[in-house]
């Protein structure tokens, strides 16, 4: 029995540590296979793997959801308390946003580029012991504002991660167009305008989610500590400044993408520090 006696069992089946580990391992296989398909697609210059990639990404997402359900049961709260959990939750958020954004912008290769990042997140999670063997429920009642703050902030980081991927794709395609090197990758990548729009929208979505997440932090019962406030604020200020600069001066897509690549270092540093707490 893995669930705490006081918690209602909301799951259709009994989730065990073995199932959670198996789910994570399955998700890793899904993302690795999608990554391998990406390499084959790019080398061969074909686009046959669009549906298999979507199915593999969906499979990885479902398996990650199973793991998060299990881990949530073990923690009695949203499972974002350790670095492995945070990475897997971040990967889950990124795939969630990918499914919302990818088809909208016809960014067929976004999944192909996202898969290696997701595989890395899950692999680190698995190697760092992401699956709890025993329950560790909170001693005091869970603060819903803290849960809202943490989960929304991480979902916003998922949007920023996807913006990072799309910005990388933009810069590659821009370089290929400028250098007139029309190779296999060029024909498979989406138009630069689609990519530039996707990066802008993803940064806006991420910024809005982060704003709500930070606003929720003001209602948390316990003071979270200044360093956390500084970290969260620095990410918010950096992306906010980028959006204001774009609004006032309308940055070129290249400048916007390059800046968003550099700014993504901040959420990564934040996650690293949170994981070492």
């Amino acid at each position, binding site marked *: 029995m893995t669930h705490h006696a006081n918690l209602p069992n909301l799951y259709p089946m009994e989730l065990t540590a073995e199932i959670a580990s198996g789910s994570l391992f399955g998700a890793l296989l899904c993302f690795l296979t999608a990554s391998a398909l990406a390499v084959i697609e790019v080398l061969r*210059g*074909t686009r*046959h793997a669009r549906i298999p990639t979507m199915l593999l990404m969906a499979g990885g997402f479902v398996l990650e959801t199973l793991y998060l359900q299990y881990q949530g049961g073990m923690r009695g709260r949203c499972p974002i308390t350790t670095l492995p959990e945070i990475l897997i939750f971040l990967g889950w958020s990124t795939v969630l946003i990918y499914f919302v954004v990818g088809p909208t912008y*016809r960014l067929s290769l976004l999944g192909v580029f996202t898969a290696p990042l997701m595989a890395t997140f899950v692999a680190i999670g698995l190697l760092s012991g992401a699956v709890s063997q025993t329950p560790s429920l909170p001693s005091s009642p869970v603060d819903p504002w803290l849960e809202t703050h943490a989960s929304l902030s991480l979902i916003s980081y998922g949007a920023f991660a996807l913006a990072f991927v799309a910005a990388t794709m933009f810069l590659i*395609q821009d370089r290929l*167009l*400028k250098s*007139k090197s*029309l190779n296999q990758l*060029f*024909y498979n*990548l*989406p*138009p*630069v*305008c*689609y990519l*530039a729009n996707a990066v802008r929208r993803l940064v806006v979505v991420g910024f809005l989610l982060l704003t709500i997440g930070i606003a929720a932090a003001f209602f948390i019962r316990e003071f979270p500590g200044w360093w956390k406030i500084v970290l969260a604020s620095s990410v918010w200020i950096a992306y906010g400044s980028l959006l204001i600069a*774009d609004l006032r001066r*309308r*940055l*070129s*897509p*290249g*400048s*916007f993408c390059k800046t968003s690549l550099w700014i993504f270092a901040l959420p990564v540093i934040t996650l690293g520090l949170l994981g070492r707490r």
Partner: protein
Amino acid sequence: MSLVCVGINHQLAPVELRERLAVPESAVPDVLGRITGSARVEECVVISTCNRVEIYAASPRSGKNSSEEVADFLRQSVSTGSPPSAEIPLYKHEGFEAARHLFRVASGLDSMVLGETEIFGQVKKAYALAQQQGATQGALNRLFQNAFRVGKRVRSDTDIQRGSTSVGSVAVDLAEKIFGQLDSCRVLILGAGEISRTMTQSLSSRGVKSITVANRSIEKAIALAEPMGGKTLSFHEWSTSLPTVDIVLSSTAAEGYVVSPEHIGSAMHERRGNPLFLIDIAVPRDINPAIGKIDNVYLYDIDALHDIASNARRRREKQIALCEEVITEEAREFLAKTFQDPFSPPPAVNDSGNKSS
């Protein structure tokens, strides 16, 4: 049951000869009726395009007599001229070779521009016409439906169609890789020569609706712009439209650069982050090459476009062996399922995909 294909194409004969054999669309029903009216032929399809005239026929008996009969029919229908009709070269494919030939035609492997797609539609149209006339039954229905499937398979499983092989198509492909769909793109044409017309038509065919032509001779500008619903602009005012256009196509006869980095630099401030695609097809060049270094500006001159088209042609040629392998395999399967052909057994295929005989 036997299957034959008799015809002439651009590889075998020049246009003067091909046009003597051409069957206008209005005459196809009559030709179909006369061929299927013969005792030896039961089914028939006529494909007549600018590059080929081919008759596919199926009959319940062995193929040799029916192929001679179809060849005789074609020669007799030829108008007078030189060489005499009896000396007109025709190819005659039977059984496996006939099926393989049609699969090659539908896949664009027998076309003047390797891998082109227009022939696929032309074959479909010819088949539909024959079907309407009741000239096809089981054998040719299966053959042509397989040909369409094989044509699609070859195009999707190989790179035979990848990349454009003409300068105009390359420019349009590039525009699509910058802007996506072109229906909301605005184009400025500098110079109203023939090459501008061809390129503008290519852009129009992919959805471009807003075209502005600036030319020193306003009459020529109107002649180019009007048929495409475009506008004209006085030549000395062309730079005023730079902030609002997406594509600039330049082919003036000017001796120096017409478009300078200063023109583009100031326009980019007003463009609010929108990219600009410059196509310079003039010799000497109209657009200062230094402009290509400006952020968010993509500049291609005539040599760059030619290089891309040549690379695509080379890439397509490298795909031929792979396409032939797919086609031979499909033709063998088709024959095995459909016909018991006594005189034209499908040849074995070696590892490289070539016929061993």
